[in-house]
């Protein structure tokens, strides 16, 4: 199945990516090959995705006990941020919704 240029651009927009003309062409081919591979998997007689639990994971599902523990110091939490302001992450202004 060959992806159209339109489909590639749509996926790029959803992923917040801007592609050059060459990239569009490149990904049309590359993504198509991935989809073809998944299509092969689809032909296998597998249970519908979602509800199936693998043989390895025995129900009931393991859960985390509701106990809180110390979080990261705020300095560490912000250490990878491109920009910060006091204890906040600083990001380009989000358009005020509404008016």
């Amino acid at each position, binding site marked *: 199945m060959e992806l159209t240029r339109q489909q590639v651009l749509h996926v790029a*927009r*959803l992923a*917040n990516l801007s592609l050059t003309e060459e990239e569009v062409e490149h990904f049309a081919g590359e993504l198509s090959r991935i989809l073809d591979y998944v299509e092969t998997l689809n032909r296998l007689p597998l249970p519908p*995705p*979602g*509800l*199936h*639990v*693998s043989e390895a*994971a025995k*129900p*009931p*599902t*393991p*859960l*985390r*006990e*509701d*106990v*809180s*523990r110390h*979080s*990261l110091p*705020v300095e560490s*939490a*912000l250490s*990878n941020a491109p*920009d910060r*302001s*006091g*204890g*906040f*992450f*600083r*990001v*380009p*202004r*989000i*358009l*005020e*919704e*509404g*008016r």
Partner: protein
Amino acid sequence: MSPSFEMVVGLEVHSQLLTHAKLFCGCENRFGAPPNTLTCPVCLGHPGVLPVLNEAAVRLGIRLGLSLGCTIHHRSVFDRKHYFYPDLPKGYQISQFTYPLLTGGAIPVRSGPEVRDIRLHRIHMEEDAGKNLHAGIRDASHVDLNRAGVPLLEIVSEPDIRTPEEAVDYLKKLRQILRSTGVSDGNMEEGSFRCDANVSLRPIGSSTFGTKVEIKNMNSFRFVHKALVFEVERQSELLERGERVVSETRLFDSHTGRTLPMRSKEEALDYRYFPEPDIPPLVLDPEWIEKEKASLPELPQERILRISREFGIGEAEAEILVVEEELARYLDEAREALRGHSEKGGWPLEKGVARLVNFLLTEVLREWNRKGVQVLGDSLSSAEIAHLLALVTEERLSLSQAKDVYAIAVESGKSPRKVIEERNLSQESGEETIGRWIVEVLAENPSEVQSYRDGKDRLFGFLVGQVMKKSGGKANPQKLNHLLKEALGR
């Protein structure tokens, strides 16, 4: 709204859960901490981390499902919902899409004089996003991720709601259930109970739906009511002019009482849901559900019936006390305060409680509807109300005087005790004092007394008036009548 249209509303409520930790990590689930002090690699969306589901969040979901009569699915699945926003560090929200934890169920809602079931469509678990702040910041926004990963239940109703009043009652009932089952604190100011509405109109008798508009940003019951009233008028006017309603998201502006269109998105949202590969399907042990069922507290509907029996009041009145928790707490406290008065005065507590409940459901409720929670505190505290009703029970104040005192107290901000003192209002029920006034009045009006004894019955009223005047209006009318008859009969 034109009478030819019918309003169709479905509500979506996001409720934060009362867990200690977040949904998929061990960070504390707490409101009001300094920004970004409750985060870790999991809720910050760092690469390579793995979410593990919080047991308590699942338990609270089960409990809510049991309380609302939902089907609790022994298998449910978490999905990734993708979108880009600065408050969503992973670039996707872990939610439930195709297989939610709960489906079905209903909430009985007051609709005029009747009660209608509003059916529930589904309830699913998901994580909250962080918080964006814009106010007072130039050319940037600030992000606080303390809220990112806090557990939520999203409760989606069927489009069964037909009036703004039903919508508000639905929300009050739901909030009450969330609180009484310990699932959520339901705090609207802190955002633990957030509501969106889908609103459309259709010609009466039609079974298809009109174009719906989603309304956001209604953070109080009053605003929900206002927003729905406004939106129905707006859509009604459009349709009557032959125009069409645009499917869009609108925000309620509490300053103007209007809804305004949000910046419209150029294309339909595509969330690209798929099963969350890091969390296996949630498989529940049926025994767990049974255990939760056994430990559920009294549900609001049961409580209504019990209170109705206990206080000898109607179910509608009992419901007010159940839904409006502040009033219920006020009643409880006032009842305790009344106990002291009853012990001191040597009268049965029930006698005072009956008066208290009636006073609360009429006088206090009216002022509470008008002025809100301020009429339950300070100079009008439960102790003050108990004192006022103790005076009525001991017949030192008539009921109508008590109502006047209360009204004056509400308006002036003074305590009832102070009002009574200032206006010298307390009622005199002492037989000795009233008897003395009677003797004086009879002595001052010998000819009227004679005429009455000769058969002029209507002079009785005149004599009552004279005694009342002498008492400065403070004589207990029943006592006065009784004693005067006795005196004249002699």
